[in-house]
């Protein structure tokens, strides 16, 4: 079938891109903060998001209005994150590989407990805000417009938080050199907990925002979030904001065009293959590459 590119189909492709972009940025940013700032890879990140989803869906089905239910979801996930940090993650700050294995164990436990407690699925929440129609296509306003905007706002907010506030300076000092930071009177333990809590809150936010767009809510959805987040974090590299933004941009271009021109299977595969190639060509991720390029230019 020869494919005709019309304005409407280009628009559909663009909305598909926005949808994918918003999703990847939101799924990634919590993981990216914890990895970029603390050097811990949280393989239970998908389950953190899932807790946000459940924390939103359960109050919603109990009759709480959706925006308030979402706040509950964020709150529940943040509390869970703080508990996990104190009980488990703090033992692994200088053991990257062990942190991956331990959090993987955690993800098995959490996903299975969700299944045991809440059954094999929760009722879906209908997507608010309706659709925008153009030509033969239509796109969900919530997924293709609201979520990307929220994603960008989150990144801007994080940028401000980590560069413009006293907390941001202290947190970055703690990450850079914990010994010196302690000597300067910074409570590094508190910085770690707070940073992890922010990462968890963002995971909860992602879960809360995704709850109405997931369809049926099942305990095995964590894997979907994790893979996209994981891939975007390593493709992006150590710098949280630029890394997330650039990786999500690139990956969603491939994901969206693959899904649009062939099917969603192909979009998913194309994105993963691109991620593999990107890792091979830029072993430090996109921002690692930019960093080394700047250093080389500075040396010349």
């Amino acid at each position, binding site marked *: 079938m020869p494919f005709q590119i019309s304005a409407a189909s280009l628009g559909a492709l663009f909305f598909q891109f926005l949808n994918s972009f918003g999703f990847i940025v939101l799924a990634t940013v919590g993981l990216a903060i914890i990895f970029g700032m603390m050097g811990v890879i949280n393989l239970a990140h998908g389950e953190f998001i899932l807790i946000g989803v459940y924390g939103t869906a359960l109050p919603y089905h109990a009759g709480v209005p959706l925006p308030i239910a979402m706040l509950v979801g964020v709150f529940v996930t943040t509390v869970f994150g703080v508990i996990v940090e104190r009980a488990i993650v703090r033992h692994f700050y200088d053991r990257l590989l062990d942190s991956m*294995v*331990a959090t993987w164990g955690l993800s098995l436990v959490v996903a*299975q407990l969700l*299944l045991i407690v809440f059954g094999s699925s929760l009722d879906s929440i209908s997507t608010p805000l309706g659709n925008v129609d153009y030509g033969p296509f239509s796109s969900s306003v919530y997924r293709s417009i609201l979520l990307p905007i929220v994603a960008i706002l989150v990144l801007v907010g994080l940028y401000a938080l980590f560069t413009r506030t006293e907390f941001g300076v202290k947190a970055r000092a703690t990450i850079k050199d914990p010994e010196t930071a302690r000597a300067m009177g910074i409570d590094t333990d508190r910085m770690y907990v707070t940073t992890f809590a922010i990462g968890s809150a963002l995971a909860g936010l992602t879960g809360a925002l995704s709850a109405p767009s997931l369809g049926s809510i099942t305990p095995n959805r964590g894997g979907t979030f994790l893979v996209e987040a994981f891939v975007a974090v390593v493709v992006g590299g150590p710098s949280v904001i630029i890394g997330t933004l650039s990786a999500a941009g690139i990956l969603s271009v491939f994901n969206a065009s693959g899904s649009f021109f062939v099917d969603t299977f192909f979009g998913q595969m194309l994105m993963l293959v691109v991620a593999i190639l990107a890792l091979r060509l830029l072993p430090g991720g996109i921002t690692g590459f930019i960093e080394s390029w700047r250093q080389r230019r500075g040396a010349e």
Partner: protein
Amino acid sequence: MSSANTQTTLSRLRGLLEGPNTLGNSKSFWVGFVLAVTALAAYPQVTDPYSALQTSRYFALAFLAISLCFVWGYCGVLSFGQVAFFGISAYAFGIIGINFASTAGATVALFGAVTAGTFAAAVLGYFMFYGGVRDVYVTIMTLVVALVLNTFMGQTAGSEWAVGTARLGGFNGMTNIPNLTFGIVFQTVGFYYAVLFALVGTYLGLRVLLNSSFGMTMVAVREDEERTATFGYNVAFVKLVVFTIGGGLAALGGVFYASWGNYVDPSVFSIAFAALPVVWVSIGGRESLLGTIGATLFIERMRTGLSSGIGPIGPEWALVIVGGLLLAVILFMPAGIAPTLNELKNTILQRRSGRSPSGGPTEESIK
């Protein structure tokens, strides 16, 4: 005269098998090892065929476990994608075996499948290690490779997805995979003995390899890549060889797995399945081949036991227990159970005799 000869042959053999890189270098260890193997060999004679068949599946999975133990525990390459080579080999075994349905065909399939899995590992290893992909990025890349295969195989349900007469089958999987055949066909108890024999042989062979000079180089790469490179070793090459051997071990397990159930489906590439080798190896002890095998047999036996539920605890609790066990081991015994027990034994011996235990120099004594 002849007993003196046997003595020297035995001690030479022990010299090959023993060294600082493996646990269990004492006479009592070998006595225990022989007893354990004898017990496993007697097991099908005293139990029903069903239990023996279940246990032979654990043996097949143990190959997957030791492949990860080998690359991660001894060379520091944490791969979440050993299941990829396991699965590639399982599918390759099915494709070749179904297309050439004869004794000779199935024997060829065995070799073809192991070659396919090993080759895949070599290609991926070359791609990664010669491209400067390291540490956590290796872990993620291997996982992503498994997930790509998972996604791909999942959509092969249509009849156009067939190699010769072998349908790939999408999520329903590939059926009618032949039995394990090596000249003769191995079934049930025969299969049990074939896989047990292969497992014991592989274990002993790996011990020889790990205690050879190549094994020392592997451990050097694990401990400090830069320093090893400074001494003139080609680190990328060492890692490639190790990764390829690891892929071969996983591939062998894949053949056993596919021929065990005459069936394979894309779940062998899934995150849930990819987690299992990491669980087995972390719990058993990543620097202990035997600990890893023991943990695999134990955990899989426990999972089977829980699948019918024990008392108030239903089958759905199996994963919670496995995950919790993993967490607890990583938190309290970061090296895994077998090395921790060994350490404990050494401390007790040391206290009792007031001198350092016999055997090779440990890392502590060098420090």
